[in-house]
């Protein structure tokens, strides 16, 4: 291969969301003849810096990196760009966009917006009113995806005078299901449940059943369990952001830039994110590959 | 060797710890119904010898034989199978367990499914503690060994070895923490066992005690044997001289 590229993911390898991202990147690598390696920062900004600098040292032509902090990676990315490496951001961007960071382009969507959209759709569909309480458990409250999605939900609710309660559920499904169910027992007035990541979105329906209540439930991400829940009506809808594209475009752009000098450009992958019962069955066969 | 072989023999045993040679070319034997006194200065290698015979340390070179047959002990169970029972210098007790459990540690009385016969063990423990050494102050076999006084701990170690004795009893400074009365009781035990055809190796710094019960003396110095003599052929002052001067 005449192009070498490194993809750096901020979270750890067990996060299901990145499966289609990596597949997209690999597909692009195969099509454009790129020698690709994928690294994971395990939620640690110091480690992500090490990874960016290591990639720079090992002499790759391009780096695709999740810019999960507006400040933490500015200098190492700039240093990489200075040595002639093409750097494309994906999944998360600097809050100031291209002004705050040397990356040449960003491929991804706005998670805050998808949380906001889900919130508003739930309000509309289930008639949530001023003074109601909804519940939004988060597996890792301080993780950037949780802050963005949860923040979107909170914004939507706040506009209608609805309160959002939240709790740390952890990544263990059995534990998360216990905690959600216990919360629902303690708070029988809760009017709706929102998942945040794939764990809370997977176990939410079970927790509602355990608590013996009957409330609507919406969440994020795609997994067989979640799709089944949407199909069966136990879940209202789930939000998707076409992660495949977030892997495909950065690598493709690196290859095109390196080979033909084409300038990288921003790509918004956030169209068609909302998946309810009416759309879910078309998505189902593609889970784990393209979705 | 035309007579019947000795019960236990050590052949040219050496043992090193890193740079230090703890034992060098050590050979001696223990006969049937014989009490051997193993004497020597501090650090002479007596405990190392006892540990080798017990199988919890391995010689660097040399070997043992039992009834004339060459053997090597690779762990304590091997020596137990050969009929050897030991009272270690450091007592080898588990502080966090009760007296009963310490006595039967590794050799529990169990039913067909491996469950403990607790009442039976409890009773035996109390009995053997009273019989082997007349220890005072232990009113319950359920006391934790960690809560016992120095002498009481040693008494538990003695009781265990005496109860399970079969052919050879190794006693590594068994009376160091015992009071007068308990010491007398123990020495009497050693003689009684000899009458029951159990041989003993007694390590002690008290030459009077050794002289009182031993049939033969092996004196060690700096890891080697310097003297090996029958009681009939020596006196306590000669022994003292050898122990002190070599």
């Amino acid at each position: 291969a005449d192009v070498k590229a490194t993809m750096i993911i901020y979270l750890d390898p067990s996060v299901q969301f990145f499966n289609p991202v990596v597949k997209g990147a690999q597909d692009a690598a195969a099509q454009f003849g790129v020698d690709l390696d994928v690294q994971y920062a395990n939620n640690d900004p110091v480690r992500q810096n090490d990874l960016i600098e290591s990639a720079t040292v090992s002499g790759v032509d391009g780096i695709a990196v999740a810019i999960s902090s507006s400040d933490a990676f500015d200098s190492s990315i700039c240093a990489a760009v200075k040595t002639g490496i093409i750097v494309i951001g994906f999944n998360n961007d600097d809050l100031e966009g291209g002004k705050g960071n040397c990356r040449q382009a960003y491929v991804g969507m706005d998670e805050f917006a998808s949380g906001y959209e889900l919130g508003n759709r739930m309000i509309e569909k289930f008639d949530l009113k001023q003074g109601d309480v909804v519940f939004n458990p988060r597996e890792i409250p301080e993780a950037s995806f949780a802050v963005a999605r949860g923040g979107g939900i909170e914004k939507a609710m706040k506009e209608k005078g609805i309160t959002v309660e939240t709790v740390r559920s952890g990544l263990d499904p059995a534990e998360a299901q216990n905690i959600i169910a216990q919360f629902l027992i303690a708070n029988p007035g809760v009017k709706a449940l929102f998942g945040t990541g794939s764990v809370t979105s997977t176990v939410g329906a079970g927790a509602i059943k355990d608590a013996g209540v009957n409330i609507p439930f919406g969440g994020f991400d795609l997994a067989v369990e979640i799709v089944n829940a949407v199909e069966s009506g136990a879940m209202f809808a789930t939000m998707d952001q076409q992660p495949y594209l977030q892997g495909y475009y950065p690598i493709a752009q690196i290859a095109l830039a390196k080979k033909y000098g084409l300038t990288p450009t921003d790509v918004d992958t956030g169209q068609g994110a909302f998946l309810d019962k009416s759309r879910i069955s078309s998505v189902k066969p593609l889970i784990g590959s393209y979705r | 060797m035309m007579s019947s072989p000795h019960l236990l023999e050590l052949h040219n045993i050496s043992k090193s710890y890193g740079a230090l040679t703890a034992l060098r070319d050590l050979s001696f034997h223990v006969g049937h119904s014989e009490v051997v006194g193993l004497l020597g200065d501090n650090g002479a290698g007596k405990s190392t010898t006892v540990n080798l015979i017990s199988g919890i340390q391995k010689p660097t070179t040399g070997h043992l034989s039992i009834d004339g047959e060459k053997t090597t002990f690779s762990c304590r169970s091997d020596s137990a199978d050969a009929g050897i029972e030991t009272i270690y210098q450091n007592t080898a007790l588990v502080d966090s367990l009760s007296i009963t459990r310490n006595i039967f540690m590794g050799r529990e009385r169990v039913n067909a499914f491996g469950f403990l016969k607790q009442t039976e063990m409890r009773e035996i423990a109390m009995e053997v503690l009273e019989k082997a050494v007349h220890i005072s102050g232990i009113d319950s076999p359920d006391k934790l060994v960690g809560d016992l006084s120095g002498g009481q701990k040693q008494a538990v170690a003695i009781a265990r070895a005496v109860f399970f004795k079969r052919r050879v009893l190794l006693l590594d400074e068994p009376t160091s923490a015992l009071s007068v009365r308990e010491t007398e009781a123990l020495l009497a035990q050693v003689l009684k066992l000899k009458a029951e055809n159990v041989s003993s190796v007694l390590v002690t710094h008290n030459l009077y005690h050794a002289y009182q019960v031993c049939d033969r003396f092996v004196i060690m110095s700096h890891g080697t044997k310097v003297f090996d003599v029958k009681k009939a052929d020596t006196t306590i002052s000669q022994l003292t001289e050898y122990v002190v001067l070599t």
Partner: protein
Amino acid sequence: MTITMTDSAVPKSRTRKQSLLKQIMTMPAGAILLVFITLQIVCIVGALAYPDDFRYLSPQNLTILMKAIPVLGCLALGAGILMIAGEFDLSIGSVYTFTAILMATLIDAGVSAFIAAPLGILTGVLIGLLNGTITLRFGLPSFIVTLGGLLFWRGAVLLYNGAVQVRFDPEPIFTSLFAGTILGVNAAFIWIILFVVGFYLLLHRHKFGNHVFATGGNRAAATAIGINTDRVKLIAFAIAGGMAAVAGIIATARVGSVQPGQGAGLELQAIAACVIGGLSLSGGRGSIIGIFLGVMLIHTITDVLLLLRAPGFYLDMFIATLIVVAAAFNHLIERRGAA
């Protein structure tokens, strides 16, 4: 002549009779039992006084508690025996996930759950044996070996199945055996009770348990007296691995799917439950009842905080504080007993 002859009629017995309470306090796990009972009484009184605000006694809540306890319970029982034997296992969280994924994918591929589940447990046992063998063969600290195991088996999950959550879809009878309701009681809870009884017999009434305590209490002494301490530790490692797999089965049967990232941090929770229950980190001390009470205490505290609507964002902070407070309380009781 200065001979003074003081009280020659010394009483034979030097032990006083102690009150029942003091006796309980000094029993192993006695103090933690008192802490637990106190907590329960407070909760029950509170629930009876404010049945609407504090739904501790509502059937749903009791059911959730019964469902919540077994997973951590199984992990803690296995980890606890190993700790009494003087070793750690930090890999149980990863093993829990790995065996669960293995089992779920086997069932997905058409294998009966009644074959897949034993295979999962067997895998757990084998991993435990591997941990034990490396630890003992090379004389390494089990902390480092099983920390390696933690990372290794987490990686193995990804290698085996990628970062994909797996649906768990066994025969219905299997699910009801592990997550159903038997005579009004949650099946998983019945399992954990059976395990507690079984481990109690094994550890406190069986020869093997005696060897475990001896090995952990003073390994050199146990070896010197003829106990094969390596074998004892190896079996304890196997039990820890096997119980991690059992925890995986119970959790998976409950939730119906396995997440590749689950199980992280469970090893510390399990060790914490053991330590709260009176186990010593250096081995040789502890009791099965203590471990189980430790697990129940952690879950009761979490449950009560949720029922009291403690601010969820900081829930862990409250749990942490209460656990430390409970441990301190436990210690004060114990010390009063010994005085």
